[in-house]
């Protein structure tokens, strides 16, 4: 595994202009990813995981604006021309959307949709192809994700398939042609645990065999613990803690991470923690200091006034908290 930096995100800010005003959703998000690495992005509903992904690919909604540097192989995605951007999307990065049902076009067959993606990719690489080649690649991709009877699925419409199959199709679409970076948004988490385990296993295998890098966004701490090398914990549009998976789970240091871990029901049956008081931050007027401060039991004047920066806590493990040492 080479340790070349593939993606570096520096001070990414995303704003949504909504009816009530300006929502400051992502606030100075910075992280980086080396080739072949599996990074987890964890947080609760509305913490900005999907927004981060969409910003990386520049597919934010029309009312959103994004500032900051997204350096992919040294090129800034936010400053790319349309053709460069198109090529990056076609050959470098790809994203698996959260909801496999709504992210497949309902009135086209799976085959048509996956073929379009492959065609775009081959065009971008300047490879000559025939329609038969495309179908072969598509069928191979479908069988790669362990779908039974790829020929039949190729000619099916999304609504004729189960949720698990749709999720596999979304993955197949992203890995049908070689990509360097896969952005997986809650893969399988809307499905049953047994299916989720299969999907995650599948993703892991794909990553191992192709050497792809993955960023996995999920709300489930268990999922990242089992499938990633490094983890970012997000709260309210900020990264509050980032570190190698083992050390982060062994030694959670941000109060939010700790509280979140305590809330997860354990198989060992030690009861349920009280939960985190209060509500998710309002992006319309977020607190001036630390965004978690209104819900934090350790907060003091300092947290109220200044925003904590990510600081080294232990080996490669960073925390954004004034009271992390406690």
């Amino acid at each position, binding site marked *: 595994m080479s340790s070349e930096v593939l993606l570096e995100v520096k001070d990414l800010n995303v704003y949504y202009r909504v009816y009530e005003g300006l929502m400051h959703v992502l606030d100075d998000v910075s992280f980086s990813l080396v080739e072949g690495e599996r990074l987890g992005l964890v947080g609760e509903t509305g913490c900005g995981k999907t927004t981060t992904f*969409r910003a990386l*690919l520049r*597919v934010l*909604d*029309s009312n959103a604006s994004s500032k900051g540097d997204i350096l992919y192989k040294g090129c800034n995605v936010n400053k790319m021309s349309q053709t460069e951007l*198109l*090529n*990056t*999307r*076609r*050959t470098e990065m*790809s*994203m698996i*959307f*959260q*909801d496999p049902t*709504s*992210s*497949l*076009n*309902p*009135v*086209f*067959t799976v085959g048509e*949709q996956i073929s*379009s*993606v492959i065609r*775009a*990719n081959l065009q*971008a690489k300047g490879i000559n192809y025939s329609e038969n080649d495309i179908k072969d690649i598509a069928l191979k991709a479908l069988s790669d994700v362990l779908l039974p009877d790829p020929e039949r699925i190729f000619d099916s*419409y999304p*609504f*004729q398939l189960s949720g698990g199959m749709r999720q596999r199709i*979304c993955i197949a*679409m*992203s890995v049908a042609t070689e990509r360097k970076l896969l952005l997986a948004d809650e893969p399988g988490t809307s499905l049953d645990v047994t299916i989720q385990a299969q999907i995650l296993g599948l993703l892991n295998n794909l990553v191992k065999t192709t050497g792809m890098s993955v960023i996995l966004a999920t709300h489930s701490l268990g999922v990242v613990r089992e499938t990633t090398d490094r983890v970012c914990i997000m709260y309210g549009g900020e990264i509050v803690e980032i570190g190698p998976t083992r050390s982060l789970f062994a030694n959670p240091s941000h109060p939010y991470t700790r509280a979140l871990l305590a809330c997860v029901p354990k198989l060992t049956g030690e009861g349920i923690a009280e939960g985190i008081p209060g509500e998710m931050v309002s992006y319309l007027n977020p607190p001036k200091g630390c965004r978690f401060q209104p819900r934090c039991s350790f907060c003091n004047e300092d947290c109220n006034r200044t925003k904590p920066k990510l600081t080294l806590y232990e080996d490669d493990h960073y925390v954004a908290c004034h009271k992390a040492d406690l």
Partner: protein
Amino acid sequence: MEIFRFICKRTLWSLVALVGLSIIIFTLSRVVPGDPARMALGPRATEEAVEALRIELKLDQPIIYQYFHWIASVLKGDFGLSLMTMRSVTDDIKIYLPATLELVIVAAIIQCVFGILLGVLATASQGSYMDYFLRIIAYIGVVTPSFVFAVLFMLLFGYKLPILPVLGRTSVGLGVQPITGMIVVDSILRCDFPVAVDAFVHLLLPATALAMNGMAQLARITRSSMIDNSERDYIVMETAQGLSKKEIFFKYLLRPSVIPAVSVLALQIGALFANAFLVESIFNWPGLSRYGVEAMLFKDLNAVSAVICIVGFVFIIANIFVDILVAIIDPRVRLKAGE
């Protein structure tokens, strides 16, 4: 297939509804004060003549008997005698229906093609002056009754800017031996192209006046459904996968977005028939609808009932046609109906 069972079932129920409607119209027409026989013959006819006509029209029998008698003859293709023209209603309809069909079909094509086209154009230029301009046009189209369009077109094109003919189906002296009764079709079939062109030019104004409402509606529906759909996950996903803007817009966005527009077509074809009632009389178009209005004002019950039945029947056919069209575009309807 499921979809055919679905369409058959719906058609059957529509026919039942049509029979129900005929009962209502029939009852209403018989309980309304006024003696149809007397009205047909005028105030100066003798009492004997009126009585004779009453017996001929079976007006002396109980209502239920009259109804079943009427239905029985309708099933044989006989709508009875028109009191207005004193001819068989069936013969009248044979003359007038093709003219209306021709008009409505051309109007339907105009509104469909231009409505969806304008909707697409407005979406493509969303936010620009073009978009605003098209939206204003669409607003005007929606809020103006088609008979107002007809009158205004007549004023504008017939008198102020006389570039298009405004009255009748053809210029005086031109004509063609009928096959279908639709002059454009007939003249093409008979290879009489000057007449075809002339007849088509005569069609343009009334058809456009008729189509304006529906066209504006379609444009608005198409635009709003395209804009709604363009924020959907699947479009974002396709963008993220690097498909070209053109492919996304014309393939992946257009097809799901025209479904709501196509679904309202049946209603719109009905509205075309209804508005033809007024537009035909303005443009002096010898069609079924003008005949219907005249029959209504004359209280010619046989003719009115016949016109309503025919329109109801055409409406059913339009519904079947649109159901099939939607099934072709939308696989969910095609493969899932009936579940």
